[in-house]
């Protein structure tokens, strides 16, 4: 990195990649993986999500991790953003709930109402 110009290029490039509307992926699942999330079982949630996507033969949904979202009481938390839909954050995502989220939200297109902790406005 030698200049601000280069920095700007990376920023634009990454923004493009992160923007679902332009991305090749259909959606993104973010699992909060701070100490606290992991202690509450975020790894199990991550494994369950990947496994469930695999089972359903879904390959155009990205699964990524983030730091913590701060709501320890509802950990593990997972955020699902599907193309052209507001992002939804879920709490209490254990193995079973993670699978529900994949089946009902990612696959079925229905928000899993009883697990929602936050919805984003677009």
């Amino acid at each position: 990195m030698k200049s601000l110009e280069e920095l700007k290029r990376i920023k634009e490039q990454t923004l493009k990649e992160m923007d679902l509307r332009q991305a090749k992926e259909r959606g993104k699942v973010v699992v909060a993986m701070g100490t606290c999330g992991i202690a509450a079982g975020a790894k199990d949630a991550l494994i369950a999500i990947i496994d469930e996507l695999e089972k359903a033969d879904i390959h155009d949904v990205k699964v990524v991790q983030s730091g913590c979202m701060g709501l320890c009481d509802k950990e593990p938390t997972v955020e699902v953003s599907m193309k052209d839909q507001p992002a939804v954050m879920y709490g209490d995502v254990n193995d079973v709930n993670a699978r529900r989220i994949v089946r009902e939200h990612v696959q079925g297109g229905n928000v899993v109402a009883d697990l929602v902790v936050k919805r984003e406005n677009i």
Partner: protein
Amino acid sequence: MKMNLEDRLEENPELKKQFDALEAYIGELATLEGSLINVLHRAQEIFGYLPDEVLEFVSGRLNMPRSTVYGVVTFYHFFSRVPKGRHIVSVCLGTACYVRGANAVYEKVMKTLGIKAGETTRDGRFSLDLVRCVGACGLAPVVVIDKDTYGRSTPEKVATLLNKYA
């Protein structure tokens, strides 16, 4: 009679490997200045604890008096001069955990393992430690076993959990 370190290393390739690993770590340091605590961390990782011969080795390699090395080892809770069990159970007694009933968890663990904090079970399976907050306070009470952190623990849950660690 105590054998000197070199002879012991000759006889014990496992031990030699450990000392080689420590030597390699020290060799790669950009500067020895201020590196003592980092070196001790690495040594404890390799040996599981800090026996006298390791401390002597470190004092020689870093070129500082043994008293300095011992002084540092005894100052910090994290360093142990006695061997630890195969699994280290750390019960958090930080404030958040305390007000959410960590004492009961601690008592249950003591009872289940039959040891107090700082001790190791006779079969060498578990060592018990107390910690003051591991930063997962939102999930208090918290117990850490080896590298796994368990939140929202209860005496019963922890007792069951311990069975998982052979």
